[in-house]
């Protein structure tokens, strides 16, 4: 059982929805980013999604693209991202961390070495956007064998015929992408999302968390209300990009977490 499995069991027992927050590791710089990440559990975040910077984030909108560039310009690397997780783990041993990014930096390091290092750094799960089930042998299966969750994205284009393939090697939770599009571009609608969540839940015994297009406490509440929880990324990253202090960013995160938890 990973920290992710334990967290969702705990939330289910308490009848609470999960609030997942995404921040880019090293944005705007290593120290500030570490301070923000350390403050997330206190702001009500149940699961941390830690963005791994990449030069070519094909599924991300401008907000997260720019965050990645800021991080890379500041010298952020995969190693420093793992270092940041290691530092965080010194202060928090229970909040799950999901590393979210693209495959090339991981492939470049070597999958076996990466998994060993990620596990040692206290990473609990992976979301790798450009690894569909067709490429499961690359990282998904080795990650599960190493004791990490591999969290798959399901999307509005994932039809019933394809859904079992997408869910087959998924663990931890399913991340439902509420819109066809990139992060932070359009708004999710609870009425559209509800039947999709039901469709996924009928096919898999896993929590379903909904993200892309959730940007306010009200939206977080509405979307969490029709799922097991919700993810906010771009709206938080936008505040960091605007130069808000960690305290201001965390205060905003708390309003989102309160929204999701009130569902």
């Amino acid at each position, binding site marked *: 059982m990973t920290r992710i499995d334990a967290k969702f069991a705990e939330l289910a027992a308490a009848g609470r929805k999960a609030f997942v927050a995404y921040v880019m590791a090293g944005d705007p710089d290593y120290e500030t980013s570490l301070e923000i990440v350390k403050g997330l559990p206190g702001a009500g975040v149940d699961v941390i999604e830690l963005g791994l910077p990449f030069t070519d984030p094909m599924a991300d909108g*401008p907000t997260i693209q720019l965050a990645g560039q800021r991080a890379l310009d500041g010298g952020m690397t*995969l190693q420093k991202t793992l270092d940041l997780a290691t530092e965080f783990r010194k202060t928090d041993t229970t909040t799950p961390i999901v590393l979210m990014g693209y495959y090339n*930096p991981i492939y*470049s*390091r070597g999958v076996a070495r990466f998994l060993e290092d990620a596990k040692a750094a206290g990473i609990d799960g992976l979301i790798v956007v450009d*690894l*569909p089930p*067709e490429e499961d042998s690359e990282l998904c299966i080795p990650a599960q064998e190493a004791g990490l969750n591999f969290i798959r994205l399901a*999307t509005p284009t994932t039809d019933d015929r394809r859904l079992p393939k997408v869910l087959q090697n998924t663990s931890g939770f399913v991340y439902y992408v509420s819109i*066809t599009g990139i992060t932070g571009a359009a708004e999710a609608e609870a009425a559209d999302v509800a039947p999709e969540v039901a469709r996924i839940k009928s096919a898999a015994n896993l929590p379903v968390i909904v993200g892309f297009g959730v940007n306010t406490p009200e939206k977080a509440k509405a979307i969490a209300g029709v799922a097991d929880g919700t993810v906010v990324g771009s709206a938080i990253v936008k505040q960091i990009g605007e130069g808000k202090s960690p305290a201001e960013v965390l205060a905003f995160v708390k309003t989102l977490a309160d929204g999701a938890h009130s569902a």
Partner: protein
Amino acid sequence: MADDLFNSFMNGPDENGRFGDFGGRFVSETLMPLILDLEAEYENAKTDASFWAEMDDLWTHYVGRPSPLYYAERMTEALGGAKIYLKRDELNHTGAHKINNVLGQILLARRMGKTRIIAETGAGQHGVATATVCARFGLKCVVYMGAHDVERQAPNVFRMRLLGAEVVPVTSGRGTLKDAMNDALRDWVTNVRDTFYCIGTVAGPHPYPAMVRDFQAIIGKEAKQQLQEQEGEGRLPDTIIAAIGGGSNAMGLFYPFLDDPSVNIIGVEAGGKGVNEKMEHCASLTGGRPGVLHGNRTYLLQDDDGQILEGFSISAGLDYPGIGPEHSWLHDIGRAKYVSITDAEALEAFQFCCTQEGIIPALEPSHALAHVMKIAPELPKDHIIIMNMCGRGDKDIFTVARALGFDMETKD
């Protein structure tokens, strides 16, 4: 090799879109159903005689195929060695090989009922070809082009606009060809229902590398037949040479010769200022290592952390940090050889071609020609080289003028 079908080099990719370890389908889930649909439609079209009949008709009457295979007599004499033939794909409508592939993809898009076409472009040749064919079929066309390239390729931007396309300058990332491809993918993921992504080279997720190769293979098929018409039944070239950015013109020339073991195959990458530590080049195979980008595993220019680097070349059409996966495979198994040519060498070849043959070549094939100039003098007179003259140089005269210190400003 050709006698043993099991050892054919022409069987790739496998059902997972792999050429050896290269290729694949590294895309987000939103796009997976789309590329699976495309693969199914392409498999269907490939064996449909009516699809190829329509292609042949357009190739003949709209593009002007077959393109000539031209014996470059003065060039041959000047170099004093091998006999040099140029495959004249610069004579195609729109001035480059790009339209061979665009026609195929647009016909597929029509079969799939897609009404909106998107494309990425570097130098603008693929963008112009896509805008052209979209105008021909009355389809909406959106072309993503790096902001930096929009600036240095103004004539092609204007051409695309005249043809009715919307040109979107890309400022994300560093505003180059790879960023244009990222933004095209972002558009596709957003507009999945009505949009077809017309990729300009033999890269991207399966089935693009194989599909684009198959559409470009007309170059090699024609050349093979034309050489026999001029040099006698059964005569194969001894060496075939083409320039490589993503590698579509090269794959088109090489593919029909892969199982002819006597044919030397040489791909020429853009060496920029030289394949050096500072990475001032675009030579993915000579100066890169395998990685995953834009849907496929292939050789890439990248740093130690797996971050993608910008290529550098005088030619905007070669300015891509990756290369088609089939080239990576041909490189690793040794069936094709890959070399690099610097900006300075390409410029010299550009001028040589102008004055020796009365052909103003694009900067891309000027790289291939520069390698021909290196090897031809050392080869015997009965050694036949076919070089793919994949584009004409009109688009490059401003760049060349600048490099040669000629003032092109028109004054009113």
